[in-house]
Each structure stands twice: as structure tokens, then as C-alpha cells.
């Protein structure tokens, strides 16, 4: 037993010495931490590409980490890790508004600048929100596009990520409100979750089509859902008869848009969103961006309007057959 202990202590000491090699010298750069809702999601990977570009231009160090599934508790743990790491700026896409805010307030108390992007936290828990499009804007854009394709009449169905995702509920609420208010002849016949799985979205869309023979359109509001629904429509031989629209990335949907299965994919430029977020965070840390600013200049992208404490990225963009090949993300 004693010899085991001795070996062990020797090993631990060697390890400790060796670990010095791992330890980085104190970084002289500003450190910006960038938290996505879930890091495997192609949407956030494309945000990260823009963030990296901005970090390189500004000469700051970028940390990118997040839950592998959308998980509010893990987001808090990561932010709290960053606080003890003493980063300078934290940029967050909040999975859950109230949940993350407790951790963000703690970060602010520790002197860390906080900005949010994609999905906001409570206003007192961050300095600025980089707003890519309001839930209302997204809801209206999707619903209006659906109405345009169906001439304001007919049955449609929705595919959502999970039944518990906060942003999905928010969008769905605005879609339903818009439907009630402007398109009385359209009817939402089903809402099904796909758990962010493309294969499940496909199965759900197949069942929806056979259960609702009058279905004219499927709207998928999570990014794996759009190609899933498109594949189902294509396999059912209903291309053109059942239209597909949704929120998604050009690369995942390109082939379906070209085949005429998917009509429109709505999204903002996610790379720009990441780029703008990093610029805003760094400007905030350097004192170049202060509360009350009316506009903000972000590197090569030029100037953005600031409304209250929201930095506006601009309107959502509709990708269709005509323009989708100009985008690669």
C-alpha cells in the first residue's frame, strides 16, 4: 500500500510539473467568449465563422463553447466557468431568458461586459442585444410568405424543434397571431415536434400529409426541419402541390430549392450576426460603445442602427431559387 502511495505521489508530481507545459502564459489579448444555444447546430456554426473573422480583425482571442444539446442548465454552467476564467466579454444566445440572466448578472458584477445575440436575456442582465430580427418580424415574414404562396387560403401545418424550446414558442405565438389577424381563410391543422432531427421531421411531415389530404404547405421553424419536410414532400411525389417554407440555412436547403420542392428559406445573414456581435462586445469593453448610442460602426459591414439597447442587424432575408447560390453558409 505504501509503495503504491509513493508511486502515486511521484506520478502526481510529475503530472503537475508537466502540466506547466499546458498552462498558457498570461494572454495580453482581450478575451471574448461566445456562447451558442447548441454548438452542433449549423446555424451557430455559421455565426461562429463570422465571429472568428471579427476576432481576427480586432486582434482579440475568441472562446467558443456551448451545450451539445440546447440545455439551459449547461449554458449557466459554461457562463459561470467563464466568469472564473476572467474573460472580458461574454456574448450569449439565450436558451432561456430568466434562466441565463442570473448567471449574466453575476458576470456583470464581476466586471465582464455582456451582450446577447440571437435570443435575448432580461434587459438588466446585458448591455446590448444584437437583434437579428424580432420574433414578431420572423413570425410575420413566415406567415406572410405562406399566405403569398397559398393566395391567403388553405390548410397548412408546422414542424417545430421541440415542444419546450422557448424561441420556437415565441415564433409560433406570433405566427398564430398574424394568422388570426390577417388570414382568416387559412387554417393551421397540425403542429408536430421533430426534436431537431431531420429524419424525424421527415416522418412527421409524411404523416401530416396523409392525415390532411388538403394540406397545401408545411412550415418548418427549426433548421433541420426544413430539409426533412422537403424530403418527405419529394418522396410523396407532391412537389409543387405541398409547398415547403421555413427557417434554415442555404447550404442545407440548396438542392431542394433548386428542385422546386422548397419555395423560400428565410434567414438573416448568420455570419454577419456573429461578426456584428463580436464587434459590439469589443467596442463595449474598450468603451467605444456606450448606452444611448444611436448608431454603431462594425468594421467592414459599415454602420448599424441602434434602437434603445438593441443593435439592429436588419430585416430577415428570403432565399429562393434566384439568389440562393450567392450564399455559402
Amino acid at each position, binding site marked *: 500500500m505504501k509503495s503504491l502511495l509513493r508511486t502515486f505521489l511521484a506520478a502526481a508530481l510529475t503530472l503537475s510539473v508537466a502540466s506547466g507545459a499546458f498552462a498558457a502564459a498570461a494572454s495580453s489579448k482581450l478575451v471574448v467568449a461566445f456562447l451558442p444555444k447548441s454548438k452542433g447546430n449549423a446555424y451557430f456554426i455559421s455565426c461562429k465563422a463570422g465571429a472568428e473573422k471579427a476576432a481576427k480583425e480586432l486582434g482579440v482571442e475568441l472562446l467558443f463553447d456551448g451545450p451539445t444539446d440546447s440545455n439551459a442548465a449547461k449554458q449557466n454552467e459554461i457562463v459561470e466557468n467563464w466568469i472564473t476564467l476572467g474573460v472580458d466579454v461574454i456574448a450569449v444566445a439565450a436558451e432561456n431568458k430568466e434562466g441565463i440572466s442570473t448567471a449574466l448578472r453575476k458576470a456583470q458584477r464581476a466586471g465582464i461586459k455582456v451582450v446577447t445575440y440571437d435570443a435575448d436575456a432580461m434587459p438588466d442582465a446585458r448591455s446590448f442585444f444584437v437583434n437579428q430580427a424580432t420574433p414578431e418580424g420572423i413570425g410575420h415574414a413566415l406567415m406572410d410568405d405562406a399566405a403569398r404562396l397559398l393566395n391567403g387560403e388553405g390548410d397548412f401545418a408546422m414542424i417545430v424543434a421541440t415542444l419546450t424550446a422557448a424561441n420556437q414558442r415565441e415564433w409560433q405565438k406570433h405566427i398564430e397571431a398574424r394568422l388570426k389577424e390577417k388570414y382568416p381563410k387559412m387554417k393551421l391543422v397540425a*403542429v408536430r415536434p421533430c426534436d431537431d432531427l*431531420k*429524419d424525424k421531421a421527415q416522418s*412527421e411531415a409524411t404523416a401530416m400529409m396523409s392525415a390532411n389530404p388538403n394540406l397545401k404547405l408545411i412550415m418548418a421553424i427549426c433548421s433541420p426541419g426544413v430539409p426533412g419536410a422537403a424530403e418527405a414532400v419529394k418522396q410523396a411525389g407532391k412537389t409543387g402541390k405541398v409547398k415547403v417554407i421555413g427557417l434554415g440555412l442555404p447550404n*442545407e436547403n440548396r438542392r431542394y430549392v433548386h428542385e422546386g420542392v422548397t419555395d423560400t428559406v428565410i434567414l438573416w445573414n448568420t455570419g454577419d450576426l456573429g461578426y456584428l456581435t463580436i464587434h459590439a462586445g469589443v467596442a463595449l469593453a474598450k468603451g467605444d460603445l456606450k448606452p444611448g448610442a444611436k448608431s454603431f460602426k462594425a468594421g467592414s459591414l459599415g454602420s448599424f442602427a441602434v434602437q434603445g439597447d438593441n443593435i439592429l442587424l436588419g430585416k430577415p432575408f428570403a432565399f429562393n431559387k434566384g439568389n440562393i447560390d450567392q450564399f455559402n453558409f
Partner: protein
Amino acid sequence: MSRYFRELSVVGALAVALIAMAVFAPAFFQPQPLLSLATREAPTLVVACGMALVIICRQIDISVGSMFSVVSVCTGILAARGWPLLLVLPIAAGLGAALGALNGALVAGLRLPSIVVTLATMVALRQGLNLVRQGEFVNMPDTVQWFGLPQATGQWVLVICALALLAALGLGLRHLAAGRFVYAVGTDAEAARLAGIRPQLVTFGVFVFIGALTGLAAMMNIVQSPQVQPLSGMGLELKVIAAVVVGGVAISGGRGNLWGAFAGLLLLACVAPALTHLRIEAYWEKAIQGAIILLAVVADGLRERRQA
């Protein structure tokens, strides 16, 4: 009759469910959507066959979902690089078998409990895949989908392959010596050993087998769509274990057959589309699936009590 009572009762429940659907939602029975449903479930059936074997052998494998994802992504990348599918197919099965062999070696060679071993490989494989791929989709050329066949033909090929595999394995399990060995080991490993069977070898074999079947299933899945999502196969383990158990395979080993597992899978696979057709809100889906599993095991328990 009484020997197959359990399997027949599942078939009965399935029949009742289908008749109910015929009455309340006849639209459920349209050839094209049903073929699509069958095609979507074909890979699951293949994995369920393997799981039935493993459970009959009194083991369990909860790493199938992660293995499925890893094989899907690897073979998807090969296919995207233009490797011929005839070459990719054995690679898929081989890779699956190799992963299964790892589980098998730990369980049979070191006599570690299978639930813990496969729990560890499940987490390690899933996170390893995330680490390497960061969730990125694999886009494949059009020639991969349906093996380059027309869609309907491709769908039939997949469904028939899955059914043929089921039939072959089902009959093999019943009539081949190797099949009986699995029952023998699952019933009483020590008695099997005294009877001249090598229980560790059989156990190792079923793990390699479920790995190979999972690889095959992954291949059957990636030819259904032009893209591979690294998350595909998430939760597959629970789905197939539930199907196998509902189908009357006893978790305590040595009892059950593939036909029952097949019926169990059909029953569970119908839940989600049936809810859509009956216009029941999706919130109830998980609760209903849980209730079906509990109902099946409660029925088992009550029956055994009456016999005892």
C-alpha cells in the same frame, strides 16, 4: 397456443389499433404514406432484430444509437467522396461489427456488466463524433439516394431487405444450433457451459452481430436521403429496446422471438402517425409510449404471477 400467447396478444393489440384507425382515421391507410413509413422504420427493424438477440442472451446494448450515428457519418463521407456503394456497404457493416466487438470484448472477455459498458461507449462515441464533426451535415451526391434506383423501387428494396433479414434471423434463431445457443446462454450461462457451449463466445458473437446489423441499418438510412445529420440515431436505443420488450422478449433473458419484436416495433411505430391522424396533440406522445411499455410489462408480470 399458450406458448405464443404473449406474441399473439401484441399482434392482437396491433390489430385493434389498426381497426380503430380504420374506423376513426381511414386516411391512415394510403399505400404511398404507408410505404414511406415502412421505409423509415426498416433500419429500426434491423437494429431491433439485433437487440432482440442481445436481450435474449441476457445482455443489453444501449450504444446502438451512437454506433448508428458514427457509422452513418463515416459511410456518408465515403459515399460523398464517390466510393461505390457496393464497397461502402461491407465497410458499414464491418465498422459496426468492430464497434460491437469492442463492447463484446469488454462484456464477454472482462465479464463487465453490459449496461455499464455500453453506457460508457454510448457517451464516448456520441461525444467523440461531436468533437470531430461539430454537428455538420454530410451532403452526398444524388446517385447515393435509393442506390441510384427510382424512388419507389428503392423503397421496396429497403423494406424487402429488412423483412428478408428478419425472416432469415427469425428462422435461424429458431432452427440453427447457433440460435439455440443464444437461448441457452440467456437462460442459464452455467448450464450452457456444462452442456458444452462457450457462453463468452456466444455473448461476444451477439455483440458483434448487433454492431454489424446497426452498421447495415445506418447504411439503409443514409441511402434514404441526400444528407446525413450527425444526430441521426439519437434515442434509437430506447426505441428498439421498447419495441423488443413490448414484443415479449424477456429482459431477464432466454425468452422471446423476433416475430414478437417485429409486432412490438409496428405497434410503437404507429403511435406518432396515429396521433397526427387522430389529431391528438403531440404533447401526449411520450406519455403514451411510456404507458404502452408499462402496460406490456405489467401484463407479463400478471401472467407470470398467475402461473406461479
